[in-house]
């Protein structure tokens, strides 16, 4: 080996060493091996200035089995009728009850924040400060072994640059757009960057009890590099349900 080769190897060695020293292990593996989802993301739903190639396709209505479809349509019709009278019907959020999975991923105009490490991806929704944890590389549990809740149990795996998330254990009262589901519901999400600063989450709800076929819809988010998440504690909820079951606003006398 010549002196030139020796110097070359020494320089290469130093460069490699600097990478190992500079980045903490979890983050270096996460960013080097996979897409980087870290940071705050705001909804990207189209409208003025949006790139229609990156906005999500319109969602179709869910294909519920006939007996459940009838119930679902009746509830939606009752809700629309109540709104037209100015007497909205209560839902979970009128009592400040959190949305859970998957609704928390698309609440009005509120951002989400993603914290990504090798072993866990944590998603914090600004609205109601909801938190879900996705365990990377862990096997999913049987549905019957997961206590039903708002967020269930989520595990994830990387398929190239797509994060595939599997969630079970969402309790039946936690509904997306008032859509009923059984305790067999299974949610699969495919999350990927479709542009450097645009993230899409394709959400598929499987429910062999209530759905004729899996229901899929897609959300998109834009990266908000400088955004600082705002706290959201629901401590001044003035909505209440009167004795007729109508949501009212509590006003003060003075």
């Amino acid at each position: 080996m010549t002196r030139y080769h020796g110097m070359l190897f020494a320089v290469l060695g130093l460069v490699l060493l600097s990478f190992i020293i500079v980045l903490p292990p979890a983050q270096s593996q996460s960013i080097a091996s996979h897409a980087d989802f870290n940071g705050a993301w705001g909804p990207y739903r189209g409208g003025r200035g949006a790139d229609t190639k990156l906005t999500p396709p319109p969602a179709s209505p869910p294909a519920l089995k006939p007996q459940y479809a009838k119930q679902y349509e009746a509830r939606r019709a009752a809700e629309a009728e109540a709104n037209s009278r100015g007497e909205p019907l209560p839902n979970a959020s009128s009592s400040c009850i959190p949305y859970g999975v998957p609704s928390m991923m698309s609440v009005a105009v509120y951002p989400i924040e993603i914290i990504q490490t090798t072993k866990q991806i944590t998603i914090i929704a600004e609205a109601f400060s909801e938190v879900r944890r996705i365990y990377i590389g862990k096997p999913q549990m049987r549905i019957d072994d997961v206590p039903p809740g708002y967020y269930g149990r989520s595990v994830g795996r990387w398929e190239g640059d797509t994060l595939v998330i599997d969630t079970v254990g969402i309790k039946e009262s936690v509904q997306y757009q008032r859509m009923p589901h059984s305790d067999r519901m299974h949610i699969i999400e495919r999350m990927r960057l479709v542009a450097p600063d645009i993230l899409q989450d394709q959400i598929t709800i499987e429910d062999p009890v209530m759905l004729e076929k899996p229901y899929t819809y897609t959300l998109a988010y834009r990266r908000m590099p400088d955004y600082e998440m705002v706290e959201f504690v629901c401590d001044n909820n003035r909505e209440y349900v009167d004795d007729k079951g109508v949501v009212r606003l509590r006003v003060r006398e003075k």
Partner: protein
Amino acid sequence: MCRLTILATAILSLTGTAIAHHSFAMFDQTKQTTLTGTVTAFEWTNPHAYIEIDVPDEKGTVKHWSVELGSPSILMQSGWKFKDLKHGDKVTVRISPLKDGKSGGLLVQATLPDGRVLGNGPGRGPAQPASTNAGAPNQ
């Protein structure tokens, strides 16, 4: 149809995937009322902020109103700050009143003591004179 309803409808109809926090159906968005009075409280809270205001009529009789705003996060996106109002400030608010006749409403726009005019929606900034309704988010 007012811009508030248009915005709410637009957000929902783009993909049908956004979750509304609560219906604005309790407010009569076909009507607007202007109130000028004295702030008794400005509550920078979730799920909504509120302006509490004492409003005197022509005879000097004071009636109290509760005015609902968006959440702090959404208000900040339209230029509000948590110290923009305080007890004793004079303020003028344009609201869509409650349909049930109680003395409450949804903010359309507010004129602050320093002359700034603020709306009630994300990225909408101060309401412009040409605008009749600053709009609010579907939340």
